[in-house]
């Protein structure tokens, strides 16, 4: 496996008419797992389409696997497996035909593509539904089908645009487990484009944050998530009375909406023991006590607000 980064963009700008989708961005997408995060319209999908050669950037250089993109766009494109955000429904095709068609479009022979299609559909868990017409698939199964279509030619890199969009919790979990398995077992590099930050936290080592066509942050994910030990989320059963007593003793309390959950900011010198003592005295039984770490969502909100208020700020 070659070690060149998946892509390197140098001062890439892309405009649709007068709207600027990407504003002179330079970034590197390393091997491994990269999360591409941003609001709607931040330029995520445009970036993916540029990597795929579907759009030619208005300005700037794009290098994919260490090769200039425009030199060999069609051969480079086959090393990607692209799962689009929009559902491209080709009505009246069966699931297996849809996936095989995808393989054939990448250049596989007809028989190979059908063999792979059956195999990949089994892998994503659609084995029993493969002969159904595509338009009858539920949301969750459609997403799996799209993943299968992106996997059929066994690409090195998966470009996933909102893979968990519209899925219910079990479906989302199943999709993420599938992706985790692919990353671990199939040794795939992944570029995950999403605004569900939980997904990025779960899958990705690196993260690129885009806001309004600019790069707000790029680099490893870990440093973004700092732990704050003086803040706790608690949930309990029983009365709310103990909160009142805590407040009297100087604890900052942000109550949750449904009455048995709160965010506590402990003053210095407090230990959790004291918390339990107060709870015990007033008949509350804690069943959750979680130190609050700043999650990607709030980091992201902070960074993108900064970028919005100050257009020149760049990380």
């Amino acid at each position, binding site marked *: 496996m070659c070690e060149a980064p998946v892509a390197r963009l140098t001062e890439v700008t892309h405009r649709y008419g007068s709207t600027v989708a990407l504003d002179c961005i330079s970034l590197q997408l390393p091997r491994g797992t990269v999360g591409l995060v941003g609001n709607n319209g931040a330029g995520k999908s445009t970036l993916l389409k540029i990597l795929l050669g579907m759009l030619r950037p208005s300005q700037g250089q794009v290098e994919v696997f260490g090769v200039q993109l425009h030199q060999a766009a069609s051969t480079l494109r086959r090393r990607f497996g692209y799962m689009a955000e929009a*559902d491209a*429904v080709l009505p009246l095709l069966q699931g297996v035909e849809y996936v095989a068609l995808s393989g054939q479009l990448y250049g596989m022979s007809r028989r190979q593509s059908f063999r792979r299609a059956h195999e990949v559909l089994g892998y994503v868990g659609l084995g029993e539904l493969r002969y159904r017409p595509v*338009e009858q698939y539920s*949301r969750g199964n459609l997403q799996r089908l799209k993943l299968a279509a992106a996997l059929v030619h066994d690409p090195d890199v998966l470009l996933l645009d909102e893979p968990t969009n519209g899925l219910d919790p079990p479906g989302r979990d199943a999709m993420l487990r599938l992706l985790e398995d692919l990353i671990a077992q199939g040794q795939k590099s992944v570029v995950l484009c999403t605004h569900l930050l939980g997904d990025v936290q779960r899958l990705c080592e690196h993260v690129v944050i885009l806001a309004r066509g600019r790069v707000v942050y790029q680099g490893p994910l870990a440093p973004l998530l700092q732990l704050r030990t003086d803040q706790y989320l608690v949930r309990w059963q029983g009365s709310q009375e103990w909160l009142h007593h805590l407040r009297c003793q100087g604890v900052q309390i942000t109550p949750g909406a449904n009455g048995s959950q709160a965010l506590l900011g402990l003053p210095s010198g407090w230990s959790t023991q004291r918390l339990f003592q107060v709870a015990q005295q007033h008949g509350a039984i804690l069943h959750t006590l979680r130190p609050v770490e700043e999650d990607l969502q709030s980091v992201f909100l902070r960074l993108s607000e900064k970028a919005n208020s100050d257009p020149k700020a760049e990380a």
Partner: protein
Amino acid sequence: MKSWWYAWRALVWVTLGRLWWSVHTLLLLFPTAALMLFVLRYRERFAQAQPEQVIEAFAQFTQTVVVMLVVSFLLPVVALGFGTTGLGGDREEGTLVFLLTRPLPRWSIALGKWAATVPLVVLFTWGAFAGVCWLMGPAGRMAWRGYALPLFWGAMAYGSFFHLLATWVRYPTVVGVVYALFVEALLGNMPGVIKRFSIGYYVRSWIYELGAPWGVSPPEMFVPLEATSCAWTLIAITLGSLALSAWVLQTKEYIQQER
């Protein structure tokens, strides 16, 4: 009652606006314009100076322009363009949900859509026909006076029938195209009673009877019906389709397919 009127008026008005400013109008204007230019050249074949020449021109004009181009082609196409998209457009684009969850009685939604689409079909065909007749000169004016009524009821019947299709079947446009192209073009020209399935047949019969005193005669295998029965049939189709579409919309459930 007043609030119902406001709501219904808005429905008719917006539907009318959407239909008129749609790509269909533009597309229909092309054949209409082509038809008018055609007549502009066509009339040069006739002198139309003497009364008997006018009558000769009138007979020819009836056969080629009125029957072949207006009734058999323009009328179905206009009805197809507007009739099936008034309500069918809402069904296909999935915007019908927004109408069905408003406090308007369901039958009045059908009525409102009908009130927007069918007059548009009538006015468009009438407009095109009037233009064509005016361009034709004296013979054309004769044709307008004679044929405006059959054309009116033809347009009403066509429009209402396509409106019914739109409330009833799942792909009204597809069924409408099959009807317009196959039933009208194929069955309408077949021998025997099979052509009574086509609305155009009644309009043509009516026209042939009206034109008979001036030497307009139907083609060989065409067995025309009396004008009065034609008129009543067309009126019955119009009213029947309207009533049926109101009833269908009142009772039918429209479930949006996920796409």
